[in-house]
């Protein structure tokens, strides 16, 4: 009952948002924020069960004729990702209540946000591929309208690109899911995993490729990344935070859960196995370098952050390619959580800076540290976390992944090379982060008037900064929660 409630709770907020939103400009944001906190508490209620049994499952009648009951489940991984999602929704909604105040038809904006929440949470807590696909595609339409309707320059173009790219990916996923149903007669991830072992091998390989390809589009792995910089930089800041913090993470989660977790173990041919993982690993390295280097060359404040997302999805893909090594996979999932918090915060900061100064080009900023100390602090926390400075969130997870890389490298020497390259990539990360921070906050001042944002905008920034620091210095509990999940 808990998970069903958690799944449907965002839907309940929709009529409220509609009723309140026509009169008030700020209240609907508050409603979504409150609902997401209640949702978070509901999800956390399952933690004891998850820790003791490894998995918490609920199943309801939905479409038994197509092998699709409404199965919801929570384990360490999905729970921590759903939790950070809800936290991010909470923060960005509080942020949006002030940030979005000048735009028109806000009730529609919040209505779409409430719709989006359903998909964002649902994608992490379902064990049925059909429900999963529903939630996966459910994110698409609200996101399209949010980016298009409330974005910046040529926003509908960016939204169009986003829609077509991710829908194309989803279509490949659909073929994969259809093939899994055809081979096993079930759409339950865990049942399918067992039944697939008896399926013909040549099919499995293609299912794996189709699924991974589809998920990689949403994750924006390099040859498929073209939609991301536009969509992320043209979306309004709260939406960018969710795009970079949750939506692309969902792609990585899906690769871990569906491609690697369900289909991959059944591929018995070892050489095919190794080839696939090598491909993932190399794609990860390419993404990490490409994102970091492009971020180094960009001048637009939001595009830098967007390209940094591509780079970090490269890290995660590298971590996933270490499957079934525990350090690597846990590191990748932990990196998802850490990156979600850090990058969400960084996008909120970028939005705050843009709103307070009205400038997007980082060359025309400078010296903001003394004028906006609070923003400077939270930007420092988030961007240095992105760069992988110890004691901040992303360091721990990167460290885990590199450790896993060297461990796997013992049997498979390619991983020595890719891990070394990943470590070199962190230097580039540091470079673009330092340039970003230097140009905006430290260089000689080019902007006369700027103040710290209002309390409504700065509260979520402070909150997320605390989360990022906490995740960096005290990550024991969340690692404990994640490692209770059954990975391979």
């Amino acid at each position, binding site marked *: 009952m808990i998970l069903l409630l958690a799944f449907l709770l965002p839907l309940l907020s929709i009529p409220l948002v509609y009723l309140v939103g026509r009169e008030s400009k700020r209240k609907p944001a508050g409603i979504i924020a409150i609902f997401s906190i209640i949702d978070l508490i509901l999800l956390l209620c399952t933690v004891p069960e998850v820790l003791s049994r490894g998995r918490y499952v609920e199943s309801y*009648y*939905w*479409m*038994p*004729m*197509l092998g699709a009951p409404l199965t919801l489940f929570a384990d360490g991984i999905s729970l921590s990702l759903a939790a950070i999602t809800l936290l991010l929704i909470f923060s960005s909604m509080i942020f949006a209540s002030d940030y979005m105040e000048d735009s028109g038809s806000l009730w529609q904006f919040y209505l779409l946000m409430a719709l989006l929440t359903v998909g964002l949470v649902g994608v992490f807590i379902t064990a049925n591929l059909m429900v999963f*696909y*529903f939630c996966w*595609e*459910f994110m*698409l*339409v609200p996101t*399209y*309208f949010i980016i*298009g*309707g409330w974005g910046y320059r040529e926003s*509908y*173009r960016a939204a*169009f690109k986003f*829609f*077509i790219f991710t*829908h*194309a990916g989803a*279509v*490949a996923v*659909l*073929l994969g899911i*259809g*093939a899994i*149903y*055809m081979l096993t007669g079930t759409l339950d991830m865990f049942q399918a995993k067992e039944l697939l072992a008896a399926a013909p091998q040549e099919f499995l390989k293609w299912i794996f490729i189709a699924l991974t390809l589809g998920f990689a589009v949403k994750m924006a792995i390099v040859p498929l990344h073209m939609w991301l910089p536009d969509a992320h930089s043209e979306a309004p800041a709260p939406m960018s935070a969710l795009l970079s913090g949750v939506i692309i993470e969902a792609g990585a989660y899906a690769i871990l859960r569906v491609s690697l977790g369900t289909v991959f173990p059944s591929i018995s041919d070892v050489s095919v196995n190794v080839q696939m993982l090598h491909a993932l690993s190399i794609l990860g390295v390419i993404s990490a370098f490409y994102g970091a280097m492009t971020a180094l060359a960009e001048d637009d404040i939001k595009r830098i952050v967007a390209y940094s997302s591509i780079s970090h999805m490269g890290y995660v893909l590298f971590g996933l390619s270490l499957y079934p090594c525990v350090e690597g996979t846990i590191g990748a999932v932990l990196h998802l959580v850490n990156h979600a918090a850090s990058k969400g915060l960084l996008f909120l900061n970028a939005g705050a800076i843009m709103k307070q100064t009205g400038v997007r080009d980082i060359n025309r900023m400078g010296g903001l540290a003394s004028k906006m100390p609070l923003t400077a602090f939270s930007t420092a926390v988030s961007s240095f976390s992105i760069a992988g400075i110890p004691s901040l969130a992303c360091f721990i997870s990167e460290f885990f992944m590199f450790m896993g890389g060297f461990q796997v490298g013992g049997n498979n020497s390619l991983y020595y090379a890719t891990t070394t390259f990943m470590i070199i990539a962190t230097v580039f990360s540091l470079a673009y982060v330092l340039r970003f921070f230097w140009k905006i906050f430290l260089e000689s001042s080019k902007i006369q008037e700027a103040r710290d944002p209002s309390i409504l905008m700065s509260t979520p920034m402070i909150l997320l900064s605390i989360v990022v620091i906490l995740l960096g210095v005290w990550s024991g509990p969340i690692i404990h929660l994640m490692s209770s999940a059954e990975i391979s």
Partner: protein
Amino acid sequence: MMGILDALMPSAILFIFAIFTVPVLRFIHQYKRMHYRSLCILWILTIFVIVTVATVRVLTKYYISMEEDPFKQIFLVSESKPILSTSFFIDSVSAYMVVVYLTTGLISMIYSVLFVGEKNHLSERYFALMLMVLGSVIAATFSGDLLTLFIFWEASAAGSCLLIIYRKTPESIDACLKYLVMIIMASGFIVYGLSIIYGLTGSLNFWAVREALISLPDKSLLIIAFVFVACGYAIETAIVPFHMWLPDAYTAATPSTSAFLSAIVDQASYYVLMRVLIYILTPPIILNWPLALAIFSALTMTVGNLFALAQTNVKRMISYVCVADIGYNLVAITSVKPLGVMGNLFFFFVGGMTTALAFMAVGILNNLGIKHLDDLSGTGRRLPITSLSLVIAVCSFSGIPPLAGFMSKYMVFTAAIEGGMVWLAVIGVLNSLLQTGYLLRLVHYMYAKPLKRRFCGIREEPKVLLIPVYMLVALIILLGIYPSIILLMIHPAAQQLNLLLP
């Protein structure tokens, strides 16, 4: 025990009431002009309630004895030689189809009443014709031999002609002529094919033909007959090389006609094709047609979508989407698997509803003078409710959950994979992507571009006209979120296929 009257009752009621519709509506028009629309809807609702009662009677009788007798045959003359007599045939597929026709028929007739209204004095004939077409489609669905099927099917085609020509604009006369020529050619083909089949088997009864064909020693004549019959029904279904009449007819017709035809006559033609191909005439055990049909299906999808991509007239674009939909339906037919039949039956309902929804929304826009893609610019803000319904139609066409279009596409493509035609599934999926691309262009125009100065005068949305539109929207969302409502009916129908295929 079911008699011939039971099976004929729904259509007979529709025919009789269709005849009464003209004087009744004329009377209302003369004396109660103020309340013409509401009284008209009341009259149609009454007819539908009576038909629904009759249908429910047939269906309960059928479902009670479904277990022991899943394929129920009713003969007009059952004494001496039943296989030569006119007969009716009820199984769970035809039972389901009647439910589909009645649901979508009611909604599209309400729309027609509101759309055509009292302005045109011929409107009562129009509604009577719609009832006639609905009646003959239901009779064709229940028919038990190829001749009865042919007769009722041609009756509905003739009615459709008059529906298309209703406004008597030059384009509609032109389109109607094209349709007529094609239909007459098609019926010639079918009759020729049927005569060969009669010669081969000595009967036109579904079961007798089936039994005789399975044990047929020499198949060379059968191939000729098959080609003629399949071509004939392919023309009426508008499979690609024979599709030219459809876009013209649907573009030139009144939007309410297009909605009605696409929701009912189109779906009925797919049903007839499926019935003839899978169930009766030539299951793959007799003649191996799936591969040929798969090629036509790929062609139909691709051509439909490519032509739709090139259209600037919105209504014509939707008409080409109809052509593409035929391709998706064929994908499921080629699989000859229970899942494919499920997908087909679901698609008949949902595809019909979605095209009807699109035509209805476009009809409302047409009334305001918005015809081309350019004119759509900025209407999303000025006409939010109408545009939202078009957006929902677009999303359902593109197969985005939780709308019903997704479930139908999922089943269809999975069936293709199950039938061993992965290439067809891949082509279908790529087509679906292409479709998303050009349909999203509609949304892009509606929301991303500024309003044209010509349309700045538009203030009010026609609220009443939107009621049937939103009935369809509600059904599409409901069936998308919780398809089990319909799947409960479709599932046994699909399982019956296993009884037929050894």
